C-alpha cells in the first residue's frame, strides 16, 4: 500500500525531516508512527498527503509514484485517502451532515448517494443524532468523529490520522482509537502518527518509531515489551 524508498526531506531552512527512510506498509495494516517532536513523523504524514515533496527517494502509494504526480492531479490522489487531523479541521459554517457530505460533493456524487451514505457513516461513528449540529456545538470527541466520518465516507483504501487524539481526553481518545480499529477491520489501511504512549502500548499494533528523521524501530504486531520506553528513547 505504502512504500518509502530511501526518502529524505531537508527543509529550506536546513532542518532535517527524514533521512533515507525505507518503509513498507501492506494493505489492510494498522500502523502507529511514533516519535518525539522533530522526529520526522509529521514530515512523513505531510509527504504522504503530498503537501510537501521529498528532496530524495521515491514514495509509492497504491502502486503510484506520488512524487511524479502533477499539481492538477493532486486532488484525485488525495481522494484515495481519508485524513484526520489533531485540530479536526471541520468547515465551521457547515453542519455535521454537510461536512461529511462535502467529501462526496467534490467527487460529484449524486444527492441520492449522499443521502444514503452520510447517515450510514454517521451511524458508524455514533453521530446520527448530531447530523444537524454545527462544529461549535460539538465536543472535541464529536468533532473528531465527524472528521473520521468525512475521511471514510468515500471508502478510501487508506486512512491517515495525524495526532487524532491530541486534543481529546483519555476516554474520548479511546473511543476514536476503537473507531479507527473498526475501520481497519473493514479492510482500510490505517496509519496513525501519535504521541499517545498508553494507547500505543495497549492496542498491540505495528509501531514505527522515528528519531531525527530515521527509522529507529519497526516493531511487528507481537512483542511490545515496553512501548513507553521506546517512545521515550526516541
Amino acid at each position, binding site marked *: 500500500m505504502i512504500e518509502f524508498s530511501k526518502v529524505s526531506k531537508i527543509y529550506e531552512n536546513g532542518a532535517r525531516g527524514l533521512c533515507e527512510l525505507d518503509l513498507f506498509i501492506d494493505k489492510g495494516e494498522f500502523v502507529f508512527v511514533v516519535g518525539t517532536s522533530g522526529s520526522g513523523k509529521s514530515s512523513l504524514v505531510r509527504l504522504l498527503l503530498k503537501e510537501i515533496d521529498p528532496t530524495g527517494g521515491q514514495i509509492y502509494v497504491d502502486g503510484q509514484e506520488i512524487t511524479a504526480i502533477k*499539481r492538477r492531479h493532486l*486532488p*484525485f490522489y488525495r*481522494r484515495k485517502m481519508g485524513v484526520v487531523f489533531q485540530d479536526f479541521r*471541520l*468547515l465551521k*459554517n457547515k453542519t455535521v451532515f454537510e461536512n461529511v457530505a462535502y467529501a462526496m460533493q467534490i*467527487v460529484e456524487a449524486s444527492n441520492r448517494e449522499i443521502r444514503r451514505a452520510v447517515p450510514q457513516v454517521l451511524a458508524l461513528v455514533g453521530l446520527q443524532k448530531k447530523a444537524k449540529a454545527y462544529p461549535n456545538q460539538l465536543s472535541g470527541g464529536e468533532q473528531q468523529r465527524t472528521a473520521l466520518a468525512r475521511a471514510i465516507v468515500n471508502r478510501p483504501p487508506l486512512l491517515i490520522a495525524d495526532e487524532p487524539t491530541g486534543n481529546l481526553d483519555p476516554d474520548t481518545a479511546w473511543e476514536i482509537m476503537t473507531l479507527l480499529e473498526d475501520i481497519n477491520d473493514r479492510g482500510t489501511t490505517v496509519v496513525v502518527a501519535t504521541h499517545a504512549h498508553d494507547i500505543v502500548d495497549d492496542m498491540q499494533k505495528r509501531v514505527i518509531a522515528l528519531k531525527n528523521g530515521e527509522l529507529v524501530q519497526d516493531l511487528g504486531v507481537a512483542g511490545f515489551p515496553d512501548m513507553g520506553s521506546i517512545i521515550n528513547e526516541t
Partner: protein
Amino acid sequence: MKLRTIRYYIHEAVRSVIYNKFMSMASVFAVASSIFIVAIFFIIGANVEHFMGQLEAQMGMAVRMDENLSRSDQVALEHRIRQLPHVRDLEFVSREEALQQMGETIGEQHIRGMEGYANPLRDSFIVELTHLRYHDDVERAIMNLEHFGVAEIHSHAQFAGTLSTITSIITVVSAFLLLILAGISVIIITNTIRITVNVRKTEINIMKYVGATDWFVRWPFVLEGVIIGLLGGAIPGFFCLLAYPRLVSAMGELLNNDAIQFLPDYYITMYVFPLSLILGVLIGLLGSITSVKKHLKV
C-alpha cells in the same frame, strides 16, 4: 460540469455571503462607495462634454449668400455645402428672419425702418459642424464655393479654436482621472475581498486536503465575488437612477437657463447603471480569483 455541481456552487456562494454577512457587507459597501465615486465622476464628465457639444453646435458659421441668388441656386448651394465633410447640419435663415433675430437681440427700436427693401441683411445658411476642430477646413471649403453664390462667411474662428482646445483637454483629463479612480477602486476592493478570503484560508486548506480541485474550491468564491460585485454595483446604480432626474430638475430651476441642457435621464439607465453593474462584477471577479489563488497551493 454536472448541473447539480453548478447548483451546489450557487447554493454555497449565496450561503457564504449570508454566513459571512459582516465581511460581505463590508465588501459590498467598499465596492458600492468606489463605484459611486466613479459613477459621479463619469456623470459629471459626460455632462461637461455634453455642454461643450451644445456650445460647439451653437458655434456654427453663418454663410451669407449673394443678394441676387435665385431660389434654385440657393438650393444647389445648400446641397453643395451639405456634401462637404464635417458638416453636420445646415439651416436656412432668410434676411427677414435674420432682421427679426437682430431686433430681438439689439432691440426693436434699432431696426425700425429696415424692413422690406431697406433690409441690409442677406439670406444665409447656419452651418453646424461635426466638431469644432474642423472649423478652418470647412471655412476654406465653403470659401471655395464663392462662384456658387457665397458672399461672405461670418464665424467665431478664434473662440471656436479655444473652445475646441478646452473640450479636448477636458476629455483627456476626465478620461485620465476616471482611469486612476477606477484603478484605486480596484485596489481597495481587491484588498477588502482579499481580507475576507484570508479569514477563510483554513476553510480553503480543508477543502484541498479533502481532495477538492482548485476550481471546485474557487467557483463558490468566484460566484460570491460576483454577488458582492453585483450588489456593490447595483447600490450606486439605483442611487443614480433615482437621484439624477431630481438633481437635474433642481439644477435646471437653480440655473434658470434654457441654454444649458443636461444629459437626459435615459443616459443613466442606458450607460451608468449597466456600467456600475459590469464594473462591480469585474471587481468582484478579479478580487475573488486573485485572493483565492494564494491559498490553493496546499
